[in-house]
């Protein structure tokens, strides 16, 4: 029998519980709000002998990711977690991990990058890593976080992929929210994730290899192309894995979560926990006769451009809500969406929005206003701000 159990837990603790069940070989981690609970909880498991993992307590996030990469290319199954400037501190190692094809599974609990110091949620920590070569999965709730950890382990280690994975969740909003999560039994998880069969582990002294030698211009480009191939294989491999996990959980998560989107006239494209509010508003608007719909981007890397293009085709209006800015350019999600829609024979009107920076909430009234804007054909070429305190230019005051 599957022996599942439903427990009150949070996004962080669900991640940690999945880690316990996966029982990775090595975890090297450094704590930072709001992902602290992940390494802390896992260290508890280690101290209490509930896992066989080697826990390496390091002095910084840079050391954490470096230790993870070393362990991973040695053949170990490796996991870790971080947020905000901790992730930023790891930045220079991320492309190395990806090029080494190190299948690390990383709990990225989204928190705004300083300065100023802010502990709350936005996507400014994960978005700068979108070019790193890592897979990025954004989870809406704790259940999805738990399921995604299991999928990520298999996805990262698959021979056709061999790419490290960020499993992202919104800091505090998801990581610290207690809600019911259905957990699989230890046996089920063990069965699903199996054992890692590393291809070229450093610890295989009979077949010694070196990782990361100097490479001249004659091969660098080709090596990057092999990474691109791994990433290109993700959609196919992920489809198989999510079907397989569904046999245990009864849940499947498509790369693009389309909510009442097929026959919609107006769409909001959004990621992570803010989607909940948008879905509630979609339902309310539908009851009022408005054909509203929502697209939640779950995989930001690789970006589901084809699916998004198909679903956005022919829509009367699309709004994209970004939870991070690319100062001086187009915000990350908007840039991907616009790029995906570029090939449409008929242009779909699109409005970019920035919201939620530093943890500012998205409320139902905000989503309603976004839909109204689309319905009233009210567009601007530049991105608009949701909930920003602004001087009222017309009336000379707030």
């Amino acid at each position, binding site marked *: 029998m599957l022996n599942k159990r439903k427990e009150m837990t949070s996004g962080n603790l669900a991640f940690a519980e999945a880690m316990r069940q996966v029982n990775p070989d090595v975890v090297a981690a450094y704590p930072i709000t709001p992902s602290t609970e992940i390494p802390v909880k896992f260290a508890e498991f280690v101290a209490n002998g509930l896992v066989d993992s080697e826990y390496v307590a390091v002095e910084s996030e840079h050391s954490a990711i470096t230790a993870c990469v070393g362990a991973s*290319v040695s053949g170990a199954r490796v996991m870790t977690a971080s947020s905000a400037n901790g992730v930023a501190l790891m930045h220079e190692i991320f492309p190395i991990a990806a*090029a*080494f*094809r190190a299948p690390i599974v990383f709990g990225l609990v989204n928190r705004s990058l300083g300065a100023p110091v802010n502990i709350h949620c936005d996507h400014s920590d994960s978005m700068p890593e979108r070019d790193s070569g890592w897979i990025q999965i954004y989870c809406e709730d704790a259940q999805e976080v738990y399921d995604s950890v299991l999928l990520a382990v298999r996805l990262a280690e698959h021979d056709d992929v*061999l790419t490290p994975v960020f499993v992202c969740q919104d800091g505090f909003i998801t990581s610290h929210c207690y809600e019911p999560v259905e957990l699989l039994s230890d046996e089920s998880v063990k069965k699903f994730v199996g054992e890692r069969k590393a*291809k*070229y582990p450093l610890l295989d002294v*009979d*077949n*010694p*290899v*070196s*990782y*990361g*030698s100097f*490479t001249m211009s004659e*091969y660098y*480009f*080709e*090596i990057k*192309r*092999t990474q691109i*191939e791994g990433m290109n294989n993700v959609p196919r491999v992920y489809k198989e894995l999510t079907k397989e996990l569904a046999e245990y959980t009864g849940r499947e998560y498509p790369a693009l979560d389309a909510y009442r989107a097929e026959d919609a006239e107006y769409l909001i494209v959004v990621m992570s926990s803010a989607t909940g509010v948008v879905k509630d508003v979609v339902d309310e608007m539908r009851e009022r006769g408005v054909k509203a719909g929502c697209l939640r981007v779950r995989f930001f890397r690789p970006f589901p451009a084809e699916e998004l293009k198909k679903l956005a085709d022919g829509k009367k209006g699309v709004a994209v809500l970004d939870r991070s800015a690319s100062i001086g350019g187009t915000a990350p999600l908007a840039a991907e969406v616009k790029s995906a829609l570029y090939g449409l024979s008929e242009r779909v009107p699109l409005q970019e929005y920035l919201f939620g920076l530093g943890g500012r909430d998205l409320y139902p009234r905000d989503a309603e206003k976004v839909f109204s804007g689309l319905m009233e054909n009210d567009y601007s070429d530049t991105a608009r701000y949701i909930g920003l305190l602004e001087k009222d230019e017309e009336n000379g005051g707030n």
Partner: protein
Amino acid sequence: MSKPKCWQDVPPATIAWGASALDVETGLWRSMRPVLDENKCISCLKCWLQCPDSSIKTNEEGRVCGINMFFCKGCGVCAQVCPVNAISMHQEADFTNEKREHGEDPGKVADHVK
């Protein structure tokens, strides 16, 4: 080792196969060559210890018997540390006319590597 002609053929994950260093004749980088005077050598092994390229040859009795010219890069550390001045550094160009013996041999390192 043949060079890859397309991205599909590059070794995965930036790896270099084991002992592939044996194929790289770093001796070609030399501009100064160490010459050992075996009469002066007392086999103190200071040069062997300090050589960054493991290029001081020793025999079964553990005595210094030469310098591996396949790998030696001519850094001169051996000459510096020798307490009896048994090693002297000379212009590599002085040896261009020297007959090479069937090319140099990287040596019996990493025999266990398949």
